[in-house]
């Protein structure tokens, strides 16, 4: 059997193992190990690679940005910033019908600006906003759907852990990817708010209405938000302006949110321990998948599968947009099953060469950034797609009283707005790219 055949066989075998609940990183290590063994006829190559591969993967300066951002997100959840964001949103929007839900979306967007993970954003904002929404007479289904959808803003609005991984895999500038994600992220927040407005017009009983606050109180509520704005400006602005490299920016962000949490008095030794533990678990999970992906990709490169697949796809003379549509649809389906990060690590090394082989009338870097943002959005839609979306479960765990069925019916609206946005971004790459200095 040729190495190429082995390469093509390894992928379905790998997926089968993953669907039989193998830890994803482990499945990739195994596929890479067995593949190398079979292709070279002895385990020596694979064993020799393992002498340094685990260490060099973990000892990567560019990847060290990930634990720093995770730590920053953990400190942010402790700092009480989530509460001030929601209070500010509620002060400005709460008197409208559905306004509190819109405030929750706005707060999620704000929290996304200091937290790079969807589940953490959904969990943190859910704890703050869900009880408030329920207290003001919001329907449980709408409230949960809102927060599950809002959680995806955590990853869309920079900083974003997944964009960091994508940037490393495709050798793109992290700052440019962050900048490109900003407009689509804000569009997502706007789209979700529009969905809420439409939803409460059709189901007026689903939302309550608060009292209108005088301007002075509104301005006061706004004051609580400055911390978030300052941290975001410092970290993302600093990385973009070139004050520091992305890894250092993330470390500065972690320190800044840590100090703010300390100042707010919520950072006790116990909480610090919990934050470190949560960071440790996510870090280990992500690095183990990265290690598996690195090892598997070593085998894939040997099998020359990516080059062969690229040659085949471009040789078919298909319209590039059609190929892109099929890829995005594939991500949408896989996204319902697998966590976004594993999926990106598993597929980008195979699909990115294919994308590079297609002509979209954009420069290579622009294509990479545009494709990255599109993939990021579709994999995040998987997080809120019934019946398997992870965010839905995270939110439902906070408010058990509401049945999942009601959440599913409401969240469909948000999914629809996501899909409309993806179509828009595919049709007009300029929306994603115009901020970039090309």
């Amino acid at each position, binding site marked *: 059997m040729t190495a190429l055949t082995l390469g093509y066989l390894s992928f379905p075998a790998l997926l089968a193992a*993953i*669907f*039989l*609940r*193998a*830890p*994803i*990183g*482990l499945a990739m*290590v*195994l596929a890479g190990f067995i593949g190398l063994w079979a292709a070279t006829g002895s385990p020596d190559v694979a*064993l020799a690679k*393992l*002498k*340094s591969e*685990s*260490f060099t993967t*973990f*000892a*990567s*300066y560019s*990847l*060290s940005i990930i*634990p*720093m951002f995770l*730590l920053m997100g953990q400190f942010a959840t402790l700092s009480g910033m989530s509460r001030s964001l929601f209070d500010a949103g509620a002060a400005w929007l709460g008197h409208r019908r559905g306004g509190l839900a819109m405030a929750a979306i706005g707060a999620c967007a704000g929290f996304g600006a200091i937290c790079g993970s969807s589940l953490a954003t959904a969990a943190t904002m859910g704890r703050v906003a869900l009880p408030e929404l329920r207290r003001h007479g919001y329907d449980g289904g709408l409230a949960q759907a809102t927060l599950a959808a809002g959680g995806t803003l955590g990853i869309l609005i920079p900083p974003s852990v997944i964009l960091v991984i994508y940037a490393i895999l495709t050798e793109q500038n992290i700052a440019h990817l962050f900048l490109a994600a900003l407009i689509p992220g804000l569009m997502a927040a706007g789209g979700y708010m529009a969905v809420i407005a439409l939803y409460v017009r059709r189901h007026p009983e689903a939302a309550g209405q608060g009292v209108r606050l005088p301007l002075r109180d509104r301005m006061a509520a706004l004051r609580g938000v400055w911390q978030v704005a300052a941290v975001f400006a410092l970290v993302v602005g600093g990385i973009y302006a070139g*004050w*520091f490299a992305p*890894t*250092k920016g993330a*470390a*500065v962000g*972690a*320190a800044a949110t840590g100090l703010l949490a300390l100042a707010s008095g919520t950072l006790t030794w116990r909480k610090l*321990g919990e934050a*470190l*533990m949560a*960071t*440790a*678990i*996510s*870090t*280990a*999970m992500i*690095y*183990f*998948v990265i290690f598996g992906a690195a090892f598997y990709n070593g085998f894939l490169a040997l099998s020359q599968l990516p080059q062969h697949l690229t040659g085949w796809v471009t040789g078919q003379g298909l319209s590039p947009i059609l190929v892109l549509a099929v890829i995005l649809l594939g991500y949408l389906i896989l996204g319902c*099953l*697998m*966590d976004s*990060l*594993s999926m990106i690590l598993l597929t980008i090394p195979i699909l990115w060469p294919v994308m590079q082989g297609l002509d979209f009338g954009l420069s290579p870097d622009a294509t990479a950034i545009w494709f990255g943002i599109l993939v990021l959005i579709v994999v995040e839609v998987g997080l809120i797609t019934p019946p*398997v979306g992870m965010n839905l479960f995270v939110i439902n765990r906070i408010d058990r009283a509401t049945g999942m069925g009601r959440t599913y019916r409401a969240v469909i609206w948000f999914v629809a707005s996501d899909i409309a946005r993806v179509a828009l971004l595919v049709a007009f790459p300029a929306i994603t790219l115009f901020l970039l200095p090309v």
Partner: protein
Amino acid sequence: MALLGGAVLLMLAAMLCLSVLGQGIERLAYSDALAARAPGVAQALQASGLRQIGGDFELVEAGLAFAVFAFLPLCQLRSGHATVEVFTAPLGRRANLWLRAFWEVVLALALCVVAWRLGAGTLDKADNGQTTFLLQFPVWWAYAASLCAAAIAAAIAVWCAAVWLWRAARGVGDADADPVA
């Protein structure tokens, strides 16, 4: 163990921040603007020795590798590894217990192999005396630190595998639970 790794992570973050501050001061000290307006301050800053921490990234790399190996056991004890459970859920509790036990055994084997090979890699680096580029500390120190953590990770993985085999054989508990109650 994980807390030790966490402490390392905190120290690395703090060090990077100091390095950023140092870099800023260094840039200021050697900037034309400061030299023109306040040459005394510029000279004082230059003489202060406050600057970017040399070789900071080498420390980050070595420290982080140790931290990640130290985090692995916690991830396993809290069932933190990414898995897909949608397709196997209909198979029932017993089948899922066996699947979990099977993969835990494979994971334990894999981590033992990783630790064994890392040991071989450490010996290689100790033999050839390779040092890092800027700080000139022997690369095998970093390898050895990671090896200690990797060995503990492997040992805990073996223990987890035993726990899951026992649970699967007895049919106790649930496949989505943690290995420690």
